[in-house]
């Protein structure tokens, strides 16, 4: 325990954990809106497009002064979003090409500026690389305050314009009939997403910021059917992956923080997609398997029943191989389950070889029910809750 406290008392580690927390909150909250507005990859474009701004900020300030660098990053990110919008609106290029063009050309411009700065041999330029891959440990206390300020501002903005953002994301046409300035609100949201990206750059870097925008939101969507809880959960997931990644990298020195944070977030996504109640893929698969089994049981029972009526002998013993032939596949498993349920009995029928089966009285009754209404059992629980889950 005291070891852990000492660990947490370490200044660098405290900085990193605090930074990762802030990153998680801001990207979770704004990422939710990006994902819901089908702008998941916008985060990727915005983060790559921040590079030229980082360089410009450095060039203008002359040193690695965080406010100027972040201002530059924000400016070129927003510019790239506008470029993407212009390309898709005023030409026949589709969204994917618009995103890709903005991303790669702005980044290339950033690379050019980066090498230009290296050429000038300016002092402190080494720190610029840290924005490419993130360098959490290099974060200063003052950097943290700036991150906290930007995060606080973003969260307050979303809280203040909550129902407007929600309406614009869900039904922009209806929002316009209520007199909301839809274009302004959409632009504000996009700029806020750019702000979140800029906040995260120092922690996880240009490449991995895309994941921080998407992953917490996608994971959160799995657990709830309401926007409010989704945004809260996304913030919590973002925070959890941030802290987990930061602590892991502090514990095992030498492992980069950004990738660890992203892997933590990816793990949360994986668990959520598989296991979230209602929307979890695993439950869907299990349900389908159960339905398939129920169907198989009904069919085998019906077959047994048909064989007995065909032979005019209610105690007729059907041979395993015959049932298999009827269904064109092995029915051993299905029969075993039926036997366990008390619907059929296995008997030996000497001198014939192999296992034979007969219906129990209960089985006969169930078979009659199935024949009367084949749909009664087949697809049990139709259309149940794909999206149930918590609230």
């Amino acid at each position, binding site marked *: 325990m005291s070891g852990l406290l000492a660990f947490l008392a370490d200044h660098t580690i405290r900085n990193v954990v605090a930074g990762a927390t802030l990153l998680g909150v801001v990207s979770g909250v704004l990422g939710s809106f990006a*994902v819901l507005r*089908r*702008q*998941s*990859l916008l*985060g*990727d474009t915005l983060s*790559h497009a921040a590079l030229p701004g980082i360089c410009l900020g450095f060039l203008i300030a002359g040193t690695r002064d965080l406010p100027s660098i972040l201002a530059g990053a924000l400016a070129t990110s927003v510019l790239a979003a506008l470029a993407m919008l212009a*390309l898709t609106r*005023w*030409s*026949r*290029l*589709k*969204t*994917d*090409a618009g*995103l*890709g*063009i903005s*991303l*790669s*050309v702005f*980044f*290339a*411009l*950033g*690379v*050019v*500026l*980066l*090498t*230009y700065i290296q*050429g000038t041999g300016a002092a402190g330029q080494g720190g610029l*690389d840290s924005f*490419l*891959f993130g360098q959490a440990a290099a974060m200063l206390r003052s950097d943290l305050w700036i991150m906290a300020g930007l995060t606080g501002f973003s969260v307050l903005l979303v809280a203040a314009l909550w129902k407007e953002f929600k309406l614009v994301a869900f039904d922009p046409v209806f929002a316009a009939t209520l007199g909301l300035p839809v274009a302004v609100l959409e632009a504000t949201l996009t700029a806020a997403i750019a702000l979140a990206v800029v906040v995260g750059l120092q922690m996880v870097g240009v*490449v*991995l910021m*895309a*994941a921080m*925008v*998407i*992953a917490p939101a*996608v994971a959160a*969507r*799995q657990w709830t059917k309401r926007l409010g809880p989704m945004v809260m959960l996304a913030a919590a997931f973002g925070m959890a992956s941030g802290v987990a990644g930061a602590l892991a990298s502090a514990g095992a020195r*030498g*492992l*980069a923080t*950004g*990738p*660890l944070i*992203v*892997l933590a977030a*990816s793990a949360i*996504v994986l668990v959520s*997609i598989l296991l979230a109640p209602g*929307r979890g*893929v695993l439950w869907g698969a299990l349900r389908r398997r159960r339905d398939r089994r129920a169907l198989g049981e009904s069919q085998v029972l019906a077959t047994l029943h048909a064989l007995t009526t065909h032979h005019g002998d209610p105690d007729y013993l059907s041979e395993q191989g015959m049932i298999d032939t009827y269904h064109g596949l092995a029915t051993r498993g299905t029969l075993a389950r039926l036997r366990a349920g008390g619907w059929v009995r296995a008997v030996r029928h000497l001198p014939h070889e192999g296992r034979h089966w007969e219906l129990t009285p209960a089985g006969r009754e169930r078979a009659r029910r199935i024949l009367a209404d084949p749909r009664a059992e087949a697809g049990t629980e139709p259309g149940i809750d794909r999206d149930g889950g918590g609230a």
Partner: protein
Amino acid sequence: MLQELLLDIPLTIMATGALVGTAATLVGVFLVLRGNSMLSDAISHSIVFGIVLVWLLTRQQSGPVQILGAALAGVLTVFLTELLARTRRVKDDAAIGLVFPALFSTGVLLLNVYARDIHLDVHAVLLGEIGFVWLDTVTVASLDVPRALVWMAAAAAANGAFVVLFFKELKLSTFDRDLAAALGFAPAALSYALLTLTSTTAVAAFDAVGAVLFIAFVIVPPSAAYLLTDRLTHMLAIGIAISVASSVLGYHAAVLLDVSIGGMMAVVTGLFLLAAFLFGPRYGVVARSWKLLGQRRVNESRLLALYLHDRGGGPQGAVAAALRDRLRWDAGKTAAVIRRSRRLGLVAPEGEVLRLTEQGRRAALELLEPWNAG
């Protein structure tokens, strides 16, 4: 003679750039047309994972096996993305943005743990070192050839052969996937083949231009070409021409300014795109606004025809005043519309009175009874 050319530093660099551009454009054209060009973003990042893994297994960085092995990581990305999207819990674009960061992160961490000393540093991963391709040569047919040049030539040739051999199938499955499937052309297999080639090209181009700049070569020249032509063959040709021109111009600009060569090449592709976006003869912003202006003017004349159709002719001055009042056209605009409508033969003056011609009456009816317009 040939040997001298092959070791001429500026020439090798430009040739490598041009070959990267050509190979990338050949696959990029189809990705852009299919609307999944962002898969190249995912692929080019994910192969970092593949490259690291292959290096750990074989302790070799280049060679055909290594390139193909690393390329599998790109194919894996595509596969995982589709798997995720098929659950219908995640939209396509979100699926892309979930998979490649995870693979990229794994690659970086593997590098952190096992390979701190190798030359494969993460900066080269993103930025490439096209300026140094001439340092690393191999002997081919008793000639010393830069290794990157060999691999890029092979990639370009492979992509070219693929496009030529399967041109009809690629075209059909790009424009009408369902029809291609119905005709038995297996569009899914074709799509995977295309993405495997994209992935292989990305690995081959990696040392030269890095992950992000590769995306520029895949997406930007084909997009620029798409704004200039409607024909697939022309799109391929124009895309390749833009790639080659960008490599040459980018190299010279980079040397002049003493900045990243790969970066400058990608910036120049962006300039070509900007030019096509603004000044393309048919789809450029300027041409389109000009065309829209023309349409607007024709329609304004039709509005005048409609007005005269409804209200009958009248003294020019009165008509002009009524139009000003009704449509908020100012005097200059009203006069211009009347002038243009006369030129189009929709209206004609009879003394002081402006009347609708037979042609004008038809133009008005065409708007009011579109079912007769045919």
